[in-house]
C-alpha cells in the first residue's frame, strides 16, 4: 500500500497538517459551515480536475477546459435568451456542446496526430474566441429562480455541489480504479503501444477521455452560471492552470500512467485548505499564490527524491 501509494500518503499527511495548522490559526476554519461552503466553491475546478486526471493519466493534457467552460457558459445564455429555447432544453444541449469540444480535441490529437499540448493550446484560443465572438461581449442575466437552485441551493442541508462532487468523485474513482476502462486509460498512459498490442481499444479510450474532459467543463459551466446567475465570455479564464496544479499535486504523472482519483481529491483539498485557511488567517491572496507554487514544486521534488531512493 505504502509502496504504491507513497505520494497519496504523503499528501494525506500534508492535508492533515494543513488542517491542524489552519484550525489553530482561525477558529472559523474547522467548522461544518466553512467546510461545506468550501465544497461549493471548489466544485467547478474539482469537477474538471477529476476528468483531467483521466486525460493526464492517459498521457495527454487538455489546456482548453477553461475556454470550453467559457464557450458553454456563453451558449447557455445565448441559446436561452437570444434563441429563445427553454432553459431546460438548453441544459440538455450544453453537455453535448462540451462533448463536441472534447471530441474535436480528440480528433486533432488522435486523427491528425498533434501533440496534445499544442492541439489544446490552439483550441484554448479557438473556443475562447468563439465564446467572445458569439457573445459579442454581452452578458446574459436574469435566470429564473429554479435554475439558481443548482448552484446556490442545498439538498438535505448539503450544498448541491457537494452532492454532485461526491457522486462525481465516486464515479471517477470507481472508473479509474476498478473498471476495465480505467485500467485501459492507465495502460495507455504507461505505454500506448503495449496497450494497443494487448488488444485494448486505445483510440476509443483516448477519444472518450477528451470527450469526458469537455463534458466536465460544460457541467462546470452550468454549475458556475447557476451559482453566479450570469453569463460572461471570460468565464473559466485560467481554469486549466488551477486544474492541472491540483491534478499534478495529487501525484498524477504529467507523462501519464501513474495517477489516482484519491490523489487528485487530496490535491484539490490541499489547495482549497491552503487558500481558505490562509485567507481566514489573514494572509492575502498573493501570498497564498506563492505558497501554492512552492508547495507544488517541493512536493514534486520530494516525490522525485523518494522515487530515486526506492529505485536504488
Amino acid at each position, binding site marked *: 500500500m505504502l509502496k504504491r501509494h507513497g505520494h497519496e500518503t504523503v499528501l494525506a499527511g500534508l492535508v492533515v497538517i494543513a488542517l491542524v495548522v489552519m484550525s489553530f490559526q482561525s477558529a472559523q476554519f474547522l467548522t461544518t459551515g466553512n467546510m461545506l461552503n468550501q465544497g461549493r466553491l471548489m466544485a467547478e475546478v474539482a469537477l474538471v480536475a477529476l476528468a483531467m486526471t483521466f486525460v493526464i493519466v492517459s498521457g495527454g493534457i487538455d489546456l482548453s477546459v477553461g475556454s470550453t467552460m467559457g464557450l458553454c457558459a456563453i451558449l447557455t445564455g445565448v441559446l436561452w435568451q437570444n434563441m429563445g429555447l427553454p432553459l431546460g432544453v438548453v441544459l440538455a444541449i450544453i453537455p453535448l456542446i462540451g462533448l463536441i469540444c472534447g471530441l474535436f480535441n480528440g480528433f486533432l490529437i488522435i486523427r491528425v496526430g498533434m501533440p496534445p499540448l499544442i492541439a489544446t493550446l490552439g483550441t484554448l484560443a479557438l473556443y475562447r474566441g468563439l465564446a467572445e465572438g458569439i457573445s459579442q461581449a454581452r452578458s446574459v442575466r436574469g435566470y429564473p429562480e429554479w435554475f439558481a437552485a443548482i448552484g446556490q441551493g442545498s439538498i438535505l442541508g448539503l450544498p448541491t455541489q457537494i452532492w454532485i462532487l461526491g457522486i462525481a468523485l465516486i464515479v471517477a474513482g470507481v472508473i479509474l480504479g*476498478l*473498471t*476495465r476502462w480505467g485500467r*485501459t486509460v*492507465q*495502460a495507455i498512459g504507461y*505505454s500506448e503501444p*503495449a496497450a494497443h498490442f494487448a*488488444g*485494448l481499444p486505445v483510440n476509443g479510450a483516448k477519444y472518450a477521455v477528451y470527450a469526458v474532459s469537455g463534458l466536465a467543463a460544460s457541467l462546470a459551466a452550468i454549475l458556475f452560471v447557476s451559482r453566479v446567475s450570469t453569463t460572461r465570455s471570460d468565464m473559466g479564464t485560467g481554469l486549466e492552470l488551477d486544474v492541472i496544479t491540483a491534478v499534478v499535486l495529487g501525484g498524477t504523472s504529467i507523462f501519464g500512467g501513474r495517477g489516482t482519483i484519491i490523489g487528485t481529491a487530496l490535491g484539490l483539498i490541499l489547495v482549497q485548505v491552503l487558500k481558505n485557511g490562509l485567507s481566514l488567517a489573514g494572509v492575502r491572496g498573493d501570498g497564498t499564490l506563492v505558497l501554492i507554487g512552492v508547495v507544488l514544486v517541493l512536493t514534486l521534488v520530494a516525490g522525485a527524491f523518494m522515487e530515486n531512493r526506492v529505485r536504488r
Partner: protein
Amino acid sequence: MTIAQTPPPAGGPALSVRDISKSFGPVKALKTASLDLMPGEVHALMGENGAGKSTLVKILAGMHAPSGGAILVDGVQTALPSPRRAAEAGIAVVHQELLLFGELTVAENVFAGHYPRKGGMVDWAFMRRRAQELLADLDCHDLDVDRKLGSLSVAMRQRVEIARALNHNARVLILDEPTAALGERDADRLLEIVLRLRARGVAILYVSHRMNEIFRISDRMSVLRDGTYIATRNARETTEGALISLMVGRPVDQMFPKTEVPIGGPVLEVRGLSCGPMVREASFTLHKGEILGIAGLVGSGRTELAHVLFGVTPAQSGTIHLHGQEIRIASPRAARDAGIAYVPEDRGAQGLVKPLPIRENISMAVLDRISPAGLINRAKEAAVAKRGFDMLGVRASGPEQIAGQLSGGNQQKVVIAKWLQTNPWVLILDEPTRGIDVGAKAEIHRLICELAGQGLAILMISSELPEVLAMSDRVMVIAEGRIRATLPREDATPEAVGHAMTARRSAS
C-alpha cells in the same frame, strides 16, 4: 579468468580491456570481461543475447561507467567517463540502434557534437565538404549532404554513422551488429568498407551474430557468455560449431528440446495477403500442433507479416481463413477476439506495461471477460493471474511484483501467459527468446513445444537460425516482403535457408 590464448600480432594492442565488470543494481550484466584489440585487425565479439556484448560496447563508448576493471588505450590506462572522452581517446562506436538526428542534415549528423570550427564558430562549408569526402570514401559519392537524415534509408544512415566514426580518425572502431538491418548487397558493401579500414590500420571490434560474415572478415574472435569472458580464437584455427558451443556452453542439440507432436488439420489459411511494400502476396497454411518457423533478415517483412495477421496494420488485400471461415482482422482487438495471439518483438515497449504488476499485465488481454458490466472482478483477475503465473513458472515474488523488475526471460513468460489467457488458436511469437539468458531460453523453448503439443498452431519468427531450424516443423523464408521458400523440417538446412534468405528475385 582466462588469458587470451593466441599471441597478439606484433606491436601493442590499440585497446585492452582488463577484467571489466558492470552491475545494474543487483543484476550483473558483465563479469570479468577481457580482450585485446590490435591495430589492423578485425576482432569479432560473439555471444548470445544477454551475454554482455552491448554492455561492453557501451562501456567502451563511455556511456556506462564500469563497476570494476581497467581499460588501456595504447597501453595506457584510460578512464572513459563520458562519450566525449571515449571519442578523444580515439574510440568510435556505431551503435546497434542508430543514434542519429533525423531532423538534421547528413553533414551535420556526421559532425554532431564535434563540429569543425573556424573562429570559434561551426564551419559549415568545411563540414559539408568533408562530409561529402567521408561519404564518398564509403561509396556514397552522390549523396546530398544537405538532405535531412530522416529521409534516408537505413543502410545510408548507417553509413553516415560510420562516416562520423571515421571523421574522428578513430583508431578503434566498434560496430555493434551493423548488418542486422541490412539486405545482402548492403551488408556486402559494409564488409568491404570494414576490410578497407582494417587495411588502414584501424582496430575493429565487430559484434555480430552472422557466422558467415564473421568468418569472412575476422582475424580473431572472442566469446562472452553470461557476462563472462570465455575464450579468444584465431579465425583460421576454429570452426563454426566450436564457436557455437563456446557461446552456448553446451552442445547445440540440448538447446532445443523439440518434441514431436502430431500435426492436425489446417487452422489458419492465408491467401495473397498484401500490405504495403513489406508484405506482398503472402500465402501459407498453418496447422494444428504445428510450429511454423519464419526466417528472414531484419527488415525482410517478417514482423510486418505478423503485424498484418494481428491487425496492427490491417491487410490491403488477400484473405485470412480461420478454421475454414473467412475473417477480417482490422485491429489487434479483432485478432484477439478471433483467437490470434501475438507476442511482439519489442517486449519492453509492446509486450509489457513495465510499471504495472504482473497481475495487471496478465489480465490485460482478457479484461473484457473478467469485467462484467465494466467492473473488474478482482477475484477472477487474481485467479487468471495466478493461473498464468503458475502455468509458466514465472520466477517472481508473486503476481503483485512489478513486471519491469523481472529478468528478460520471466518478462517473456508474463507476455506469453497474458496471451494464453485468451485461449487462442494461433500463437504468433516474434523473436521469443531475444535478450533472454541461456537457461530461460531453454525453458521458453520447452514451453513452445508443450503448447504445440496442446494443439496450438504456432508461427515463430526468429533471427537466430539455429533456433528456427531446431524448433520448426516447417520453415518459411521471407525476403523483401515475399515468401521465398517453405521448407519441411528435414530439408531446412542452414545452407538452404540462408540461400533463400539472401537470394534475389530469382528464388521466387
